[in-house]
């Protein structure tokens, strides 16, 4: 199974390239992906799969396009 990952902000440097494709194993979740990339503090990270906001427990599927960024809320 293969997914496409796009990292933004401080997460860009968590992989050799901020946009990359990656093989995943059956049962891998968004959280597993984030942890494997050593993305900091779970409160300040957010994922979309195929343009839909998902929770970290969501299972990844073949062909998924995952965007991971830091939500901002200040004014």
């Amino acid at each position, binding site marked *: 199974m293969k997914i496409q990952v796009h990292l933004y*902000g401080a997460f860009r440097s968590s992989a050799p390239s901020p946009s990359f494709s990656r093989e995943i194993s059956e049962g891998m979740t968004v959280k597993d992906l984030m942890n494997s990339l050593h993305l900091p503090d779970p*409160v300040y990270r957010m994922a*979309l799969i195929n343009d*839909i906001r998902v*929770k970290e427990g969501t299972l990844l599927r073949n062909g998924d396009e995952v965007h991971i960024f830091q*939500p*901002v*809320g200040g*004014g």
Partner: protein
Amino acid sequence: MINSEVGNLIREFSSPVLTSAGKKYIGLDLSSARRVASEVGISVREVEIAALELEIIPVRYFRNIDSLGVSGQSRLLLSSVAVVGAGGLGGLVIELLARMGVGNIIIIDGDRFTEDNLNRQILCREDDIDRLKAEVGAQRVRAINSAIEVTPHPIFLTGDNAVDLLGASQVVVDALDRISVRILLEKVIGEMNIPMVHGAIGGFLGQVTTVMPGSNILSSLYDGQTAELARGVESVLGTPTVTPAVIAALEVMEVIKLILGRGTLLQDGLLYLELENAIFSRINLKM
């Protein structure tokens, strides 16, 4: 309809001027607008609205007019925008709306300035510490553009007062600093059928989107995280000086497009800005 006495006086006091583009317009300067206003007993605002109807341009808008057109400037002057939050983003939004010539500005913020606002909040000077942000904002608008009607509400927006506070507005600007209130605002503008421009900052990161009534992009975005995410990554990255300036300008551009019905709105996703790397990305978001 313009009263003929007002029209005649405006014509009498106006004079032809060349803009930077070499186009010839008939202009009305501020002292003449004030004279017409005092002779006829109307406001400078009414004089400017009448002048634009006669295709006579108040000089303050000369540098806008080649991009906006006379009818565009006139539409802005007749429009009404509510700014919720008068801090880093809101202060700059208010400043830009006033200089663009948005004719009615409603400012909603119950907060007072504190010393740590000085790094980024354009409305806040040392002398303004402890003053109400909404009142200072209104004072600033009046000092920039006396043709604008500004209404300060020095109270925080809640589910109970939102309809009363926003009722007169055509567009709402979300310049808040708390995610939970942003989500409340999205719900309210949906019910009131008013479009909203959302902007948020954290560190050198920022995001902008336009929320059309019925869209729940913000609640989708922050889904399930509102409890822990009373604030976003700004809690750890702070809110440095430059970020609100960029995001506020983009928010005001969305407001202009909404009012004038032109250009392409930032909808169905975020414009996500990473200023440190000079990267602006479009992140699509389906609801």
